[in-house]
């Protein structure tokens, strides 16, 4: 089912994208920070993928961002992964091209402190107001 | 002197405040019973409305910060007194035939004072939601006053020696048949029922106190005795409006022998109609309500008036 999606990705991005197929309905694609926006825009605009959600996790290698795109016509989930460096993670925001990412990115900023440049409304979304401004629940490097 | 004392007493006790309050609360029980039947529910016990009012009297009155204390309390009291006076006039004309020229006009004016009371009270309570409720109440009053007055005056024109006295209307109806008999007054009666629905702020026109939209809108900030006054005033309005329509269209209240049963049945029919309308449709938006009252309802009222002039 996901063969066709993988061909498209390989044809457009060549070796900048390394694809590992977990099983025929789950594909994990690792991308560098610079190609992040082109690949995610490709997934939304060209492949018509639907951004289910994004998982941010604080791993030893750095802050890992995992955007899950549900491909409804093929019935597969394509996950785009990138790793940001630790103390001050920073990446360009997808909300300008895909409004659905608005709340998702605000949540990751709220709990991981990832700064999304160009996000229209970068406020915290879930933490309570009496928390200190730089309090990020998911960060564990302090 | 004795007659003024008698009048004051009759205002305070017999047909006035106390009697109407008891009658209104009993009618509210009928309202709850009918809606419980429609919704497959068991109705609350007969003393429920009385328990509600008694409990509210025992509660603490919370005054919101920044509320204009005088307007906040006096406005509902004015509404309560107005409904009391209307009920006294109606009952006196029906029982003792005591009336004065233009008491019909007086009743019409007094029936709008409760709405004004609620508007003043809500805007005095300095709460944004209550002010939205007050502005909605104003729009609603503007919407239904026009057809209401036209409908009342179709009854007046139908009465051959055009009079503005309630007791002469009743006398005319005793002489030559109930006004509801002819077409024009049936239209006027329908208009009056729908306007009563809006005056009582029952669904589908309970927009000013929409519980789920603006949290009980107008009387949101009231609590304790102040809220009891408002609930009492609504109950008394539910009691007096049907009686007002009976005196105008259905030959007044007669209490001689078999007629008592006939009057009670007439009264219950009107209350059941109002409650059934309440339970069978949702709340309309304020602009739909205004369009509804100025559109079709005013048209019906005007047609009724024209028919009355032509003589049917």
């Amino acid at each position: 089912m996901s063969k066709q999606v993988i061909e498209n990705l390989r044809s457009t991005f060549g070796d900048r994208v390394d694809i590992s197929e977990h099983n025929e309905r789950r594909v994990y694609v690792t991308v560098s920070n610079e190609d992040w926006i082109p690949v995610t825009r490709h997934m939304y605009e060209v492949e018509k993928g639907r951004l289910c959600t994004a998982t941010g996790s604080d791993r030893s290698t750095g802050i890992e961002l995992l955007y899950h795109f549900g491909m409804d016509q093929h019935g597969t989930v394509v996950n785009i992964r990138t790793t940001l460096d630790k103390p001050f993670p920073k990446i360009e925001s997808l909300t300008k091209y895909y409004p659905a990412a608005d709340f998702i990115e605000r949540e990751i900023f709220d709990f991981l402190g990832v700064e999304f440049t160009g996000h229209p409304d970068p406020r915290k979304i879930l933490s309570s107001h009496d928390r200190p401004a730089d309090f990020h629940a998911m960060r564990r490097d302090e | 002197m004795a007659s003024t004392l008698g009048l004051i007493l009759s205002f305070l006790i017999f047909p006035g405040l106390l009697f109407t309050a008891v009658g209104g609360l009993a009618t509210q029980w009928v309202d709850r019973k009918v809606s419980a039947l429609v919704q497959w529910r068991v109705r609350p016990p007969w003393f429920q409305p009385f328990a509600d009012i008694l409990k509210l009297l025992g509660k603490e009155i919370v005054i919101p910060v920044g509320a204009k204390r005088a307007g906040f309390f006096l406005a509902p009291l004015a509404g309560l007194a107005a409904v009391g006076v209307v009920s006294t006039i109606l009952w006196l004309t029906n029982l003792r035939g005591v009336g004065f020229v233009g008491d019909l006009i007086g009743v019409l004016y007094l029936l709008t004072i409760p709405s004004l009371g609620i508007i003043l009270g809500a805007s005095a309570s300095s709460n944004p939601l209550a002010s939205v409720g007050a502005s909605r109440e104003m729009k609603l009053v503007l919407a239904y006053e026009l057809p209401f007055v036209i409908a009342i005056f179709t009854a007046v024109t139908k009465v051959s020696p055009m009079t503005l006295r309630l007791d002469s209307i009743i006398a005319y109806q005793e002489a030559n048949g109930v006004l509801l008999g002819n077409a024009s007054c049936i239209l006027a009666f329908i208009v009056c029922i729908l306007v009563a629905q809006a005056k009582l702020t029952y669904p589908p026109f309970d927009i000013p106190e929409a519980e789920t939209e603006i949290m009980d809108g107008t009387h949101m900030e009231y609590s304790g005795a102040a809220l009891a006054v408002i609930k009492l005033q609504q109950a008394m309005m539910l009691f007096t409006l049907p009686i007002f329509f009976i005196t105008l269209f259905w030959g007044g209240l007669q209490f001689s022998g078999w007629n008592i049963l006939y009057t009670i049945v007439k009264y219950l029919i009107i209350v059941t109609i109002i409650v059934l309308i309440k339970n069978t449709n949702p709340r309309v938006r304020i602009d739909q309500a205004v369009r509804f009252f100025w559109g079709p309802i005013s048209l019906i009222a005007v047609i009724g008036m024209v028919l009355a002039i032509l003589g049917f």
Partner: protein
Amino acid sequence: MSTTIPIGPFHPVLEEPEYITLQVDGETVLSADIDLGRIHRGMELLAQEKTFDQDCFLVERICGICSASHSWATALAIEDAAGVGPTPRARYLRTIVHELERLHSHMLWVGLAGHIIGYWTVYMWGWKYREPVLDALEAITGNRNNYAWYCPGGVRRDVPDELWPEIMKQMDEFADNTNMLIGAVLDDPVILGRLKGVGILTKEDAIAYGTLGPTARGSGVDIDLRRDEPYGAYAECDWDVIVQPDGDLLAVSVVRLLEMLESVKIIKQCIQNLPGGEIRNEIREVPRGEGIGHVEAPRGESFHYIRTNGTNMPERHKMRAPTFLNIPSYRPRVKGETISDATVIFAIIDPCYSCTERMAAIDPTGKRIANGHDLIKLSHQKTEWLKKNI
């Protein structure tokens, strides 16, 4: 001049404490903003301290109405990571309970929508027809909701066979009552007046805002996970996805009402050809890796991602409920509508804010940071560190 109308945090129309501020000019709404976070219970921190079995149990408390969908999605995610599938009987049983939950969730919404537009009778009737569904759920799983019944590899308890004829009869009654309710609701001019042409969400906006479930299907977006990526026993039953093109409140209501009839069809087919056999595949060992499980919950797709590190506890469990993506979709809907419509618009996505917030903290080197104080102390240290370095 625009005043701000607060709706919430404690408001009869919202089941949960959400603070929505409407910028209002007279009666028309200019814009609306929502402040979430009042139910944020740090669910994902708790998930990282639970074993896989307990995780399915914990995840049911995300939201009272769609508890089966969250625990099924977690079970699917764990099975995806472990590479083990459920037994056929378990797949059918899971589908039956999930569709029963869709019935009770949609009927609950019909009642609440009736309550919001002031129609008490629809509210009472809707919830009266919902009670037999809850009794059926209680007969199968032992509780009205929060079933504690889904677990990785299958289901916990089997269902005696003499239960099914009774449930089949209830399903027929439910279908007749729903048809009657649909007839009563859809041709009542006043309800149509309140719902038709109000709060329109175009198909492009629906896709752009990533809306899910009935909210998206009401705007013509033809997505339904049960058909796109069949899990459970949906592939073996024939049913069709309800899509309405015009995207106003009426379309979304019609989608939900007709979906109930589809669910009844699915339940009946699943009961008829329910296979025998084992109800659970024992999952001995979950290797290091990642697993994704997503399920079509009554309000849309609920998405669960689990990363395992070989132990029997998830290292990272990301949960996202459908309402989180449905909430932004009311901004295009609410512009230009009146206040009374604004509340109906919030209710149209059947918001389940409890789903929307779970979030968590950390547990890398065994140093468990559980309560708030440690976190605050840590953040203070960080601020001092920042002040020194900048």
